[in-house]
Protein backbone atom coordinates (compact mmCIF):
# COMPACT_ATOMS: atom_id res chain seq x y z
CA UNK A 1 0.00 0.00 0.00
CA UNK A 2 2.70 2.47 1.04
CA UNK A 3 4.66 1.30 -1.93
CA UNK A 4 1.80 2.06 -4.33
CA UNK A 5 1.34 5.44 -2.71
CA UNK A 6 4.99 6.39 -2.95
CA UNK A 7 5.58 4.97 -6.41
CA UNK A 8 2.37 6.57 -7.61
CA UNK A 9 3.29 10.00 -6.29
CA UNK A 10 6.77 9.83 -7.80
CA UNK A 11 5.62 8.66 -11.21
CA UNK A 12 2.76 11.15 -11.30
CA UNK A 13 5.12 14.04 -10.59
CA UNK A 14 7.26 12.99 -13.53
CA UNK A 15 4.20 12.62 -15.76
CA UNK A 16 2.99 16.10 -14.85
CA UNK A 17 6.35 17.48 -15.92
CA UNK A 18 6.19 15.50 -19.17
CA UNK A 19 2.70 16.75 -19.96
CA UNK A 20 2.94 20.40 -19.07
CA UNK A 21 4.95 21.54 -22.10
CA UNK A 22 2.59 19.74 -24.45
CA UNK A 23 -0.42 21.25 -22.71
CA UNK A 24 1.00 24.76 -23.04
CA UNK A 25 1.32 24.48 -26.80
CA UNK A 26 -2.17 23.11 -27.14
CA UNK A 27 -3.55 25.84 -24.95
CA UNK A 28 -1.73 28.76 -26.54
CA UNK A 29 -1.16 27.63 -30.12
CA UNK A 30 -4.26 25.41 -30.49
CA UNK A 31 -2.22 22.71 -32.14
CA UNK A 32 -1.09 19.26 -31.08
CA UNK A 33 2.64 18.90 -31.40
CA UNK A 34 3.24 15.22 -32.07
CA UNK A 35 6.97 15.88 -32.17
CA UNK A 36 6.74 16.80 -28.49
CA UNK A 37 8.12 13.40 -27.52
CA UNK A 38 11.16 14.23 -29.63
CA UNK A 39 12.02 17.11 -27.26
CA UNK A 40 12.32 14.55 -24.48
CA UNK A 41 14.55 12.47 -26.68
CA UNK A 42 16.67 15.46 -27.71
CA UNK A 43 16.99 16.53 -24.07
CA UNK A 44 17.94 13.04 -22.90
CA UNK A 45 20.53 12.49 -25.62
CA UNK A 46 22.01 15.97 -25.24
CA UNK A 47 22.48 15.36 -21.53
CA UNK A 48 23.96 11.94 -22.27
CA UNK A 49 26.46 13.39 -24.73
CA UNK A 50 27.53 16.31 -22.55
CA UNK A 51 27.62 14.56 -19.19
CA UNK A 52 28.57 11.01 -20.07
CA UNK A 53 30.44 11.17 -23.36
CA UNK A 54 32.22 14.49 -22.82
CA UNK A 55 32.36 13.99 -19.03
CA UNK A 56 31.34 17.53 -18.28
CA UNK A 57 29.57 18.34 -15.01
CA UNK A 58 25.93 17.29 -14.78
CA UNK A 59 24.50 20.83 -14.41
CA UNK A 60 26.10 21.77 -17.74
CA UNK A 61 24.47 18.72 -19.28
CA UNK A 62 21.09 19.78 -17.97
CA UNK A 63 21.61 23.36 -19.16
CA UNK A 64 22.62 22.12 -22.61
CA UNK A 65 19.53 19.92 -22.78
CA UNK A 66 17.31 22.87 -21.89
CA UNK A 67 19.02 25.03 -24.51
CA UNK A 68 18.63 22.44 -27.25
CA UNK A 69 15.00 21.89 -26.30
CA UNK A 70 14.19 25.59 -26.43
CA UNK A 71 16.00 25.91 -29.75
CA UNK A 72 14.07 22.96 -31.18
CA UNK A 73 10.84 24.56 -30.00
CA UNK A 74 11.59 27.85 -31.72
CA UNK A 75 12.69 26.06 -34.88
CA UNK A 76 9.47 24.05 -35.02
CA UNK A 77 7.41 27.17 -34.59
CA UNK A 78 9.26 29.11 -37.28
CA UNK A 79 9.74 26.32 -39.81
CA UNK A 80 6.55 24.28 -39.47
CA UNK A 81 3.76 25.86 -37.49
CA UNK A 82 3.94 29.35 -38.97
CA UNK A 83 4.22 28.31 -42.62
CA UNK A 84 1.20 26.03 -42.10
CA UNK A 85 -0.78 28.87 -40.48
CA UNK A 86 -1.39 26.70 -37.41
CA UNK A 87 -3.79 24.45 -39.32
CA UNK A 88 -4.32 21.79 -36.62
CA UNK A 89 -4.45 18.70 -38.82
CA UNK A 90 -1.59 19.80 -41.07
CA UNK A 91 0.55 20.57 -38.00
CA UNK A 92 -0.34 17.20 -36.52
CA UNK A 93 0.71 15.36 -39.67
CA UNK A 94 3.90 17.38 -40.15
CA UNK A 95 5.00 17.03 -36.56
CA UNK A 96 4.41 13.28 -36.76
CA UNK A 97 6.68 13.17 -39.81
CA UNK A 98 9.18 15.37 -37.99
CA UNK A 99 9.20 13.03 -35.00
CA UNK A 100 10.15 10.14 -37.28
CA UNK A 101 12.88 12.30 -38.86
CA UNK A 102 14.32 13.18 -35.45
CA UNK A 103 14.17 9.53 -34.45
CA UNK A 104 16.15 8.61 -37.58
CA UNK A 105 18.54 11.48 -36.88
CA UNK A 106 19.21 10.13 -33.40
CA UNK A 107 19.97 6.70 -34.87
CA UNK A 108 22.29 8.37 -37.35
CA UNK A 109 24.27 10.16 -34.63
CA UNK A 110 24.10 7.75 -31.69
CA UNK A 111 23.13 4.39 -33.33
CA UNK A 112 20.03 2.56 -32.20
CA UNK A 113 21.31 0.69 -29.16
CA UNK A 114 19.58 1.78 -25.95
CA UNK A 115 21.76 3.78 -23.58
CA UNK A 116 21.64 3.95 -19.83
CA UNK A 117 21.96 7.26 -18.05
CA UNK A 118 23.80 7.27 -14.76
CA UNK A 119 21.53 8.48 -12.01
CA UNK A 120 21.58 12.25 -11.81
CA UNK A 121 21.62 11.93 -8.04
CA UNK A 122 23.02 8.73 -6.51
CA UNK A 123 21.67 6.84 -3.55
CA UNK A 124 18.52 5.19 -2.31
CA UNK A 125 16.10 5.80 0.47
CA UNK A 126 14.14 3.04 2.18
CA UNK A 127 10.70 3.74 3.57
CA UNK A 128 8.32 1.12 4.84
CA UNK A 129 9.50 -1.68 2.58
CA UNK A 130 9.68 0.54 -0.50
CA UNK A 131 12.95 1.57 -2.09
CA UNK A 132 13.08 5.03 -3.52
CA UNK A 133 16.07 6.10 -5.55
CA UNK A 134 17.22 9.63 -4.94
CA UNK A 135 17.18 9.97 -8.68
CA UNK A 136 13.43 9.59 -9.11
CA UNK A 137 12.88 11.57 -5.94
CA UNK A 138 14.91 14.43 -7.42
CA UNK A 139 12.91 14.15 -10.63
CA UNK A 140 9.65 14.44 -8.75
CA UNK A 141 10.82 17.28 -6.56
CA UNK A 142 12.21 19.08 -9.60
CA UNK A 143 8.92 18.54 -11.37
CA UNK A 144 7.00 20.10 -8.50
CA UNK A 145 9.38 23.03 -8.30
CA UNK A 146 9.17 23.63 -12.06
CA UNK A 147 5.38 23.43 -12.09
CA UNK A 148 5.18 25.78 -9.11
CA UNK A 149 7.55 28.22 -10.81
CA UNK A 150 5.60 27.99 -14.04
CA UNK A 151 2.36 28.68 -12.20
CA UNK A 152 3.82 31.84 -10.76
CA UNK A 153 5.43 32.80 -14.03
CA UNK A 154 2.07 32.64 -15.77
CA UNK A 155 0.25 34.54 -13.00
CA UNK A 156 2.79 37.13 -12.02
CA UNK A 157 5.08 38.10 -14.89
CA UNK A 158 4.21 40.23 -17.85
CA UNK A 159 5.15 37.58 -20.43
CA UNK A 160 3.31 34.94 -18.44
CA UNK A 161 0.13 36.96 -18.40
CA UNK A 162 0.47 37.63 -22.10
CA UNK A 163 0.77 33.88 -22.68
CA UNK A 164 -2.32 33.33 -20.61
CA UNK A 165 -4.16 36.07 -22.51
CA UNK A 166 -3.30 34.56 -25.89
CA UNK A 167 -4.48 31.15 -24.72
CA UNK A 168 -7.86 32.63 -23.82
CA UNK A 169 -8.49 34.91 -26.75
CA UNK A 170 -6.00 35.57 -29.51
CA UNK A 171 -7.85 38.51 -31.03
CA UNK A 172 -8.51 40.13 -27.67
CA UNK A 173 -4.88 39.74 -26.71
CA UNK A 174 -3.75 41.22 -30.02
CA UNK A 175 -6.08 44.19 -29.51
CA UNK A 176 -4.59 44.88 -26.11
CA UNK A 177 -1.13 45.17 -27.58
CA UNK A 178 0.19 41.63 -27.19
CA UNK A 179 1.94 40.23 -30.24
CA UNK A 180 0.44 36.72 -30.47
CA UNK A 181 3.11 35.53 -32.85
CA UNK A 182 5.93 36.47 -30.47
CA UNK A 183 4.06 34.97 -27.51
CA UNK A 184 3.54 31.82 -29.51
CA UNK A 185 7.23 31.59 -30.22
CA UNK A 186 8.12 32.14 -26.56
CA UNK A 187 5.63 29.43 -25.61
CA UNK A 188 7.20 27.04 -28.11
CA UNK A 189 10.61 27.76 -26.62
CA UNK A 190 9.38 27.16 -23.06
CA UNK A 191 7.58 24.02 -24.17
CA UNK A 192 10.74 22.72 -25.81
CA UNK A 193 12.81 23.48 -22.72
CA UNK A 194 10.27 21.79 -20.43
CA UNK A 195 10.17 18.78 -22.72
CA UNK A 196 13.95 18.52 -22.76
CA UNK A 197 14.32 18.68 -18.98
CA UNK A 198 11.50 16.16 -18.61
CA UNK A 199 13.44 14.03 -21.08
CA UNK A 200 16.56 14.04 -18.91
CA UNK A 201 14.60 12.79 -15.92
CA UNK A 202 12.49 10.40 -17.95
CA UNK A 203 15.60 8.88 -19.53
CA UNK A 204 17.30 8.50 -16.17
CA UNK A 205 14.16 6.75 -14.93
CA UNK A 206 13.92 4.38 -17.93
CA UNK A 207 16.63 4.49 -20.60
CA UNK A 208 17.61 6.32 -23.76
CA UNK A 209 16.51 4.82 -27.05
CA UNK A 210 15.51 6.24 -30.43
CA UNK A 211 11.93 5.11 -29.95
CA UNK A 212 11.61 6.51 -26.44
CA UNK A 213 9.49 9.42 -27.66
CA UNK A 214 6.27 7.50 -28.21
CA UNK A 215 5.24 6.62 -24.66
CA UNK A 216 5.76 10.09 -23.13
CA UNK A 217 3.86 11.54 -26.08
CA UNK A 218 0.94 9.22 -25.33
CA UNK A 219 1.06 10.26 -21.67
CA UNK A 220 1.06 13.94 -22.62
CA UNK A 221 -1.81 13.37 -25.04
CA UNK A 222 -3.77 11.53 -22.37
CA UNK A 223 -3.27 14.31 -19.86
CA UNK A 224 -4.41 16.95 -22.32
CA UNK A 225 -7.42 14.97 -23.43
CA UNK A 226 -8.57 13.83 -20.04
CA UNK A 227 -7.88 17.13 -18.32
CA UNK A 228 -9.37 19.31 -20.97
CA UNK A 229 -6.89 21.84 -22.14
CA UNK A 230 -4.73 24.31 -20.49
CA UNK A 231 -4.79 24.44 -16.74
CA UNK A 232 -1.66 23.66 -14.74
CA UNK A 233 -3.77 22.38 -11.86
CA UNK A 234 -5.79 20.18 -14.23
CA UNK A 235 -2.55 18.79 -15.64
CA UNK A 236 -1.37 17.93 -12.14
CA UNK A 237 -4.61 16.19 -11.21
CA UNK A 238 -4.79 14.14 -14.40
CA UNK A 239 -1.10 13.26 -14.26
CA UNK A 240 -1.85 11.75 -10.84
CA UNK A 241 -4.88 9.86 -12.12
CA UNK A 242 -2.78 8.36 -14.91
CA UNK A 243 0.29 7.78 -12.76
CA UNK A 244 -1.64 5.98 -10.05
CA UNK A 245 -3.66 4.00 -12.57
CA UNK A 246 -0.43 2.75 -14.07
CA UNK A 247 1.19 1.86 -10.76
CA UNK A 248 -1.95 0.14 -9.50
CA UNK A 249 -2.43 -1.86 -12.67
CA UNK A 250 1.23 -2.90 -12.83
CA UNK A 251 1.53 -3.92 -9.18
CA UNK A 252 -1.90 -5.47 -8.75
CA UNK A 253 -2.79 -6.88 -12.16
CA UNK A 254 0.06 -7.37 -14.62
CA UNK A 255 3.14 -5.38 -15.59
CA UNK A 256 2.30 -5.70 -19.27
CA UNK A 257 -0.94 -3.81 -18.81
CA UNK A 258 0.98 -0.68 -17.96
CA UNK A 259 -0.27 1.50 -20.80
CA UNK A 260 -3.55 -0.22 -21.58
CA UNK A 261 -5.61 1.78 -19.12
CA UNK A 262 -4.10 5.05 -20.29
CA UNK A 263 -5.12 4.23 -23.84
CA UNK A 264 -8.60 3.16 -22.78
CA UNK A 265 -8.94 6.36 -20.80
CA UNK A 266 -8.07 8.42 -23.89
CA UNK A 267 -10.63 6.61 -26.01
CA UNK A 268 -13.41 6.66 -23.43
CA UNK A 269 -12.96 10.31 -22.51
CA UNK A 270 -12.70 11.47 -26.12
CA UNK A 271 -15.78 9.58 -27.15
CA UNK A 272 -17.95 10.28 -24.12
CA UNK A 273 -16.70 13.65 -22.92
CA UNK A 274 -15.04 15.41 -25.85
CA UNK A 275 -14.34 18.45 -23.65
CA UNK A 276 -12.40 16.52 -21.04
CA UNK A 277 -13.12 16.04 -17.36
CA UNK A 278 -12.54 19.62 -16.40
CA UNK A 279 -13.79 21.42 -19.51
CA UNK A 280 -11.80 24.10 -21.20
CA UNK A 281 -9.73 25.96 -18.68
CA UNK A 282 -7.15 28.66 -19.06
CA UNK A 283 -3.49 28.37 -18.34
Amino acid sequence: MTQILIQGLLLSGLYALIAIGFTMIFSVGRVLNLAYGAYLMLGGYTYFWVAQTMHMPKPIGIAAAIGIGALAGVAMHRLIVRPLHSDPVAVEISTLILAVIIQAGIVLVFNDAPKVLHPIVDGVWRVGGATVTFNILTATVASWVILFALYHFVRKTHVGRAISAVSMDIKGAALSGVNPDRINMITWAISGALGAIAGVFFASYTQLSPSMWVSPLIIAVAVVIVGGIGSIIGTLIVAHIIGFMEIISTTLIAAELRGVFTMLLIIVVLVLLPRGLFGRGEL
Partner: protein
Amino acid sequence: MTSTINWRHLLLWAVFLGGLALMPQFVTRGTLRTFIFANYLAIFAMSWDVLSGRTGYVSFGHPFLIGIGAYTSAILSYRFHVPVGWSIPIAVATTMIGGTLFFLPALRIRGSYFALVTLAFMELMYQLVQVIRPDLTGGTRGISGVQTLLRGAVNNYYLSLGLMGVIAILLWSMMRTRLGTALSAIGMNEEAVEGSGLNTTKLKLFAFMVGAAVAGIGGAFYVHYLGSIAPRALFDVNFLFTIIVAALLGGASTIIGPMLGAFFLTFLLEYLRPLLPGAERYFIYGLIALLLYMYEPRGLYELFHRGRARIFGGRA
Protein backbone atom coordinates in the same frame (compact mmCIF):
# COMPACT_ATOMS: atom_id res chain seq x y z
CA MET B 1 -15.44 16.94 -62.37
CA THR B 2 -16.64 14.78 -65.21
CA SER B 3 -18.15 11.39 -64.66
CA THR B 4 -17.86 9.75 -68.02
CA ILE B 5 -15.27 7.02 -68.28
CA ASN B 6 -13.81 7.10 -71.75
CA TRP B 7 -11.43 4.94 -73.70
CA ARG B 8 -8.48 7.14 -72.75
CA HIS B 9 -8.89 6.28 -69.09
CA LEU B 10 -9.08 2.60 -69.85
CA LEU B 11 -6.03 2.87 -72.04
CA LEU B 12 -4.07 4.60 -69.29
CA TRP B 13 -5.04 1.90 -66.79
CA ALA B 14 -4.08 -0.81 -69.28
CA VAL B 15 -0.70 0.81 -69.95
CA PHE B 16 -0.01 1.35 -66.26
CA LEU B 17 -0.96 -2.14 -65.07
CA GLY B 18 0.39 -3.79 -68.23
CA GLY B 19 3.71 -2.04 -67.73
CA LEU B 20 3.89 -3.28 -64.16
CA ALA B 21 2.95 -6.78 -65.31
CA LEU B 22 6.05 -6.87 -67.52
CA MET B 23 8.39 -6.03 -64.63
CA PRO B 24 9.42 -9.61 -63.80
CA GLN B 25 11.05 -9.78 -67.25
CA PHE B 26 13.37 -6.92 -66.47
CA VAL B 27 14.25 -6.87 -62.81
CA THR B 28 16.00 -9.18 -60.39
CA ARG B 29 14.14 -11.28 -57.83
CA GLY B 30 15.36 -8.98 -55.07
CA THR B 31 13.95 -5.90 -56.73
CA LEU B 32 10.75 -7.81 -57.36
CA ARG B 33 10.41 -8.29 -53.59
CA THR B 34 10.62 -4.51 -53.29
CA PHE B 35 7.88 -4.22 -55.89
CA ILE B 36 5.71 -6.62 -53.91
CA PHE B 37 6.10 -4.47 -50.83
CA ALA B 38 5.27 -1.40 -52.91
CA ASN B 39 2.06 -3.06 -54.14
CA TYR B 40 0.92 -3.85 -50.62
CA LEU B 41 1.89 -0.41 -49.41
CA ALA B 42 -0.18 1.03 -52.27
CA ILE B 43 -3.18 -1.00 -51.08
CA PHE B 44 -2.73 0.30 -47.53
CA ALA B 45 -2.31 3.87 -48.74
CA MET B 46 -5.43 3.63 -50.92
CA SER B 47 -7.33 2.30 -47.94
CA TRP B 48 -6.11 5.22 -45.82
CA ASP B 49 -7.08 7.61 -48.56
CA VAL B 50 -10.67 6.34 -48.84
CA LEU B 51 -11.12 6.96 -45.16
CA SER B 52 -8.93 9.97 -44.47
CA GLY B 53 -7.95 11.55 -47.77
CA ARG B 54 -11.55 11.91 -48.89
CA THR B 55 -13.67 12.47 -45.80
CA GLY B 56 -10.97 14.41 -43.96
CA TYR B 57 -11.15 12.15 -40.89
CA VAL B 58 -7.40 11.68 -40.54
CA SER B 59 -6.65 8.25 -39.16
CA PHE B 60 -3.46 7.79 -37.18
CA GLY B 61 -4.39 4.27 -36.35
CA HIS B 62 -4.54 2.61 -39.72
CA PRO B 63 -2.18 -0.18 -38.66
CA PHE B 64 -4.93 -1.10 -36.18
CA LEU B 65 -7.21 -2.07 -39.07
CA ILE B 66 -4.48 -3.73 -41.10
CA GLY B 67 -3.38 -5.59 -37.98
CA ILE B 68 -6.88 -6.93 -37.32
CA GLY B 69 -6.98 -8.33 -40.85
CA ALA B 70 -3.49 -9.81 -40.63
CA TYR B 71 -3.84 -11.28 -37.13
CA THR B 72 -7.29 -12.73 -37.73
CA SER B 73 -6.25 -14.60 -40.82
CA ALA B 74 -2.91 -15.66 -39.33
CA ILE B 75 -4.48 -16.98 -36.12
CA LEU B 76 -7.31 -18.77 -37.92
CA SER B 77 -5.04 -20.52 -40.36
CA TYR B 78 -2.05 -21.17 -38.07
CA ARG B 79 -3.78 -22.03 -34.80
CA PHE B 80 -7.07 -23.46 -36.01
CA HIS B 81 -6.04 -24.76 -39.42
CA VAL B 82 -8.86 -22.92 -41.14
CA PRO B 83 -8.27 -22.99 -44.90
CA VAL B 84 -7.00 -19.67 -46.25
CA GLY B 85 -10.01 -19.51 -48.55
CA TRP B 86 -12.08 -19.02 -45.39
CA SER B 87 -9.68 -17.25 -43.11
CA ILE B 88 -9.16 -14.30 -45.43
CA PRO B 89 -12.86 -13.48 -45.94
CA ILE B 90 -13.43 -13.84 -42.19
CA ALA B 91 -10.46 -11.55 -41.58
CA VAL B 92 -11.91 -8.94 -43.92
CA ALA B 93 -15.28 -9.12 -42.16
CA THR B 94 -13.57 -8.78 -38.78
CA THR B 95 -11.63 -5.76 -39.99
CA MET B 96 -14.90 -4.17 -41.05
CA ILE B 97 -16.21 -4.69 -37.53
CA GLY B 98 -13.01 -2.99 -36.34
CA GLY B 99 -13.82 -0.21 -38.79
CA THR B 100 -17.16 0.31 -37.05
CA LEU B 101 -15.28 0.69 -33.76
CA PHE B 102 -13.18 3.35 -35.47
CA PHE B 103 -16.33 4.97 -36.69
CA LEU B 104 -17.93 5.51 -33.27
CA PRO B 105 -15.63 8.36 -32.25
CA ALA B 106 -16.13 9.91 -35.71
CA LEU B 107 -19.75 10.52 -34.77
CA ARG B 108 -18.72 13.00 -32.11
CA ILE B 109 -15.26 14.30 -32.83
CA ARG B 110 -13.18 15.18 -35.82
CA GLY B 111 -9.97 16.87 -36.80
CA SER B 112 -7.01 16.52 -34.49
CA TYR B 113 -9.00 14.78 -31.76
CA PHE B 114 -10.15 12.06 -34.10
CA ALA B 115 -6.56 11.46 -35.19
CA LEU B 116 -5.58 11.06 -31.53
CA VAL B 117 -8.28 8.52 -30.75
CA THR B 118 -7.20 6.41 -33.68
CA LEU B 119 -3.59 6.67 -32.52
CA ALA B 120 -4.75 5.45 -29.11
CA PHE B 121 -6.54 2.54 -30.81
CA MET B 122 -3.29 1.50 -32.44
CA GLU B 123 -1.21 1.71 -29.27
CA LEU B 124 -3.92 -0.11 -27.34
CA MET B 125 -3.90 -2.91 -29.89
CA TYR B 126 -0.11 -3.11 -29.69
CA GLN B 127 -0.24 -3.69 -25.97
CA LEU B 128 -3.31 -5.92 -25.93
CA VAL B 129 -1.97 -8.27 -28.59
CA GLN B 130 1.00 -9.03 -26.38
CA VAL B 131 -0.98 -9.52 -23.20
CA ILE B 132 -4.31 -11.05 -24.10
CA ARG B 133 -4.17 -14.69 -25.14
CA PRO B 134 -0.48 -14.83 -26.09
CA ASP B 135 -1.13 -18.51 -26.78
CA LEU B 136 -3.07 -17.31 -29.83
CA THR B 137 -1.25 -14.15 -30.86
CA GLY B 138 2.23 -15.37 -30.04
CA GLY B 139 2.71 -12.42 -27.69
CA THR B 140 5.66 -10.13 -28.30
CA ARG B 141 7.33 -12.53 -30.68
CA GLY B 142 4.28 -12.91 -32.89
CA ILE B 143 3.61 -15.87 -35.16
CA SER B 144 5.90 -17.31 -37.77
CA GLY B 145 5.32 -20.18 -40.14
CA VAL B 146 1.97 -18.86 -41.29
CA GLN B 147 0.83 -20.63 -44.43
CA THR B 148 1.91 -18.80 -47.56
CA LEU B 149 -0.40 -18.67 -50.54
CA LEU B 150 2.15 -18.91 -53.31
CA ARG B 151 5.82 -19.67 -53.66
CA GLY B 152 8.36 -17.51 -55.40
CA ALA B 153 8.73 -13.83 -56.01
CA VAL B 154 7.16 -13.83 -59.47
CA ASN B 155 3.93 -15.52 -58.37
CA ASN B 156 3.65 -13.32 -55.33
CA TYR B 157 4.34 -10.29 -57.45
CA TYR B 158 1.45 -11.10 -59.77
CA LEU B 159 -0.84 -11.79 -56.84
CA SER B 160 -0.04 -8.46 -55.19
CA LEU B 161 -0.23 -6.59 -58.49
CA GLY B 162 -3.58 -8.21 -59.28
CA LEU B 163 -4.95 -7.26 -55.86
CA MET B 164 -3.69 -3.72 -56.16
CA GLY B 165 -5.02 -3.38 -59.71
CA VAL B 166 -8.49 -4.69 -58.88
CA ILE B 167 -8.77 -2.54 -55.75
CA ALA B 168 -7.50 0.53 -57.56
CA ILE B 169 -9.91 0.17 -60.48
CA LEU B 170 -12.88 -0.53 -58.21
CA LEU B 171 -12.10 2.45 -55.99
CA TRP B 172 -11.44 4.64 -59.00
CA SER B 173 -14.79 3.74 -60.55
CA MET B 174 -16.53 4.32 -57.23
CA MET B 175 -14.93 7.71 -56.77
CA ARG B 176 -16.19 8.84 -60.16
CA THR B 177 -19.81 8.28 -59.19
CA ARG B 178 -21.96 10.74 -57.28
CA LEU B 179 -21.10 8.78 -54.16
CA GLY B 180 -17.40 9.49 -54.63
CA THR B 181 -18.10 13.17 -55.12
CA ALA B 182 -20.19 13.24 -51.95
CA LEU B 183 -17.39 11.57 -49.94
CA SER B 184 -14.87 14.15 -51.13
CA ALA B 185 -17.38 16.89 -50.36
CA ILE B 186 -17.50 15.74 -46.73
CA GLY B 187 -13.78 16.42 -46.46
CA MET B 188 -14.29 19.96 -47.74
CA ASN B 189 -17.39 20.99 -45.78
CA GLU B 190 -19.33 18.38 -43.89
CA GLU B 191 -22.15 20.76 -42.84
CA ALA B 192 -22.85 21.71 -46.43
CA VAL B 193 -23.17 18.06 -47.41
CA GLU B 194 -25.66 17.51 -44.60
CA GLY B 195 -27.26 20.80 -45.67
CA SER B 196 -27.68 19.41 -49.17
CA GLY B 197 -30.00 16.79 -47.76
CA LEU B 198 -27.50 13.96 -47.59
CA ASN B 199 -27.07 11.70 -44.56
CA THR B 200 -23.41 12.29 -43.73
CA THR B 201 -23.38 9.62 -41.02
CA LYS B 202 -24.34 6.99 -43.59
CA LEU B 203 -21.76 8.31 -46.07
CA LYS B 204 -18.98 8.32 -43.49
CA LEU B 205 -19.87 4.84 -42.30
CA PHE B 206 -19.67 3.69 -45.91
CA ALA B 207 -16.23 5.28 -46.35
CA PHE B 208 -15.04 3.64 -43.13
CA MET B 209 -16.38 0.26 -44.22
CA VAL B 210 -14.72 0.46 -47.63
CA GLY B 211 -11.46 1.69 -46.07
CA ALA B 212 -11.56 -1.12 -43.49
CA ALA B 213 -12.38 -3.76 -46.09
CA VAL B 214 -9.42 -2.72 -48.23
CA ALA B 215 -7.15 -2.60 -45.16
CA GLY B 216 -8.39 -6.06 -44.16
CA ILE B 217 -7.77 -7.53 -47.62
CA GLY B 218 -4.31 -5.97 -47.73
CA GLY B 219 -3.44 -7.09 -44.20
CA ALA B 220 -4.65 -10.65 -44.67
CA PHE B 221 -2.93 -11.24 -48.00
CA TYR B 222 0.23 -9.56 -46.75
CA VAL B 223 0.53 -11.89 -43.77
CA HIS B 224 0.09 -14.89 -46.04
CA TYR B 225 2.84 -13.52 -48.24
CA LEU B 226 5.28 -12.81 -45.41
CA GLY B 227 4.42 -15.96 -43.49
CA SER B 228 4.99 -14.20 -40.19
CA ILE B 229 3.62 -11.43 -38.07
CA ALA B 230 4.86 -9.50 -35.04
CA PRO B 231 3.25 -6.68 -33.09
CA ARG B 232 6.15 -4.25 -33.25
CA ALA B 233 6.41 -4.45 -37.02
CA LEU B 234 2.73 -3.76 -37.40
CA PHE B 235 1.32 -1.51 -34.70
CA ASP B 236 4.11 0.96 -35.07
CA VAL B 237 4.41 4.67 -35.67
CA ASN B 238 6.97 4.02 -38.42
CA PHE B 239 4.55 1.81 -40.30
CA LEU B 240 1.78 4.35 -39.84
CA PHE B 241 4.15 7.04 -41.06
CA THR B 242 4.99 5.02 -44.18
CA ILE B 243 1.31 4.60 -45.07
CA ILE B 244 0.29 8.21 -44.49
CA VAL B 245 3.34 9.59 -46.22
CA ALA B 246 2.75 7.34 -49.25
CA ALA B 247 -0.79 8.69 -49.62
CA LEU B 248 0.14 12.32 -49.00
CA LEU B 249 3.31 12.26 -51.03
CA GLY B 250 1.58 10.82 -54.07
CA GLY B 251 -1.49 12.97 -53.71
CA ALA B 252 -4.38 12.40 -51.35
CA SER B 253 -7.91 12.25 -52.75
CA THR B 254 -6.75 10.60 -55.93
CA ILE B 255 -6.36 6.89 -56.69
CA ILE B 256 -3.15 7.05 -58.63
CA GLY B 257 -1.58 9.32 -55.97
CA PRO B 258 -1.29 6.78 -53.14
CA MET B 259 0.08 4.25 -55.63
CA LEU B 260 2.64 6.72 -56.95
CA GLY B 261 3.58 7.58 -53.38
CA ALA B 262 3.95 3.94 -52.40
CA PHE B 263 6.26 3.20 -55.33
CA PHE B 264 8.23 6.38 -54.85
CA LEU B 265 8.80 5.66 -51.17
CA THR B 266 9.68 2.04 -51.59
CA PHE B 267 12.24 2.84 -54.24
CA LEU B 268 13.63 5.78 -52.38
CA LEU B 269 14.22 3.49 -49.40
CA GLU B 270 15.70 0.86 -51.68
CA TYR B 271 18.11 3.27 -53.37
CA LEU B 272 19.16 4.77 -50.09
CA ARG B 273 20.04 1.32 -48.81
CA PRO B 274 23.59 1.27 -50.21
CA LEU B 275 24.24 4.78 -48.87
CA LEU B 276 22.55 4.41 -45.52
CA PRO B 277 22.12 0.80 -44.50
CA GLY B 278 19.93 1.18 -41.44
CA ALA B 279 16.93 3.05 -40.18
CA GLU B 280 18.72 6.31 -40.99
CA ARG B 281 17.16 6.15 -44.42
CA TYR B 282 14.01 7.39 -42.79
CA PHE B 283 15.90 10.61 -42.13
CA ILE B 284 16.22 11.54 -45.80
CA TYR B 285 12.91 10.06 -46.70
CA GLY B 286 11.16 11.89 -43.86
CA LEU B 287 12.75 15.17 -44.87
CA ILE B 288 11.57 14.79 -48.46
CA ALA B 289 8.10 13.88 -47.23
CA LEU B 290 7.96 16.82 -44.84
CA LEU B 291 9.13 19.37 -47.40
CA LEU B 292 6.78 18.09 -50.06
CA TYR B 293 3.86 17.98 -47.63
CA MET B 294 4.50 21.51 -46.47
CA TYR B 295 5.06 23.09 -49.84
CA GLU B 296 2.92 20.92 -52.12
CA PRO B 297 0.24 19.30 -49.97
CA ARG B 298 -1.38 17.83 -53.05
CA GLY B 299 1.69 15.74 -53.67
CA LEU B 300 3.54 14.33 -56.64
CA TYR B 301 0.34 13.91 -58.63
CA GLU B 302 -0.10 17.67 -58.66
CA LEU B 303 3.56 18.21 -59.56
CA PHE B 304 3.20 15.87 -62.55
CA HIS B 305 0.00 17.56 -63.53
CA ARG B 306 1.62 20.94 -63.47
CA GLY B 307 4.68 19.71 -65.31
CA ARG B 308 2.47 18.29 -68.02
CA ALA B 309 0.52 21.51 -68.26
CA ARG B 310 3.78 23.40 -68.69
CA ILE B 311 4.96 21.11 -71.48
CA PHE B 312 1.71 20.75 -73.39
CA GLY B 313 0.25 24.10 -72.42
CA GLY B 314 -3.07 24.50 -70.67
CA ARG B 315 -4.28 22.52 -67.73
CA ALA B 316 -5.58 19.04 -68.19
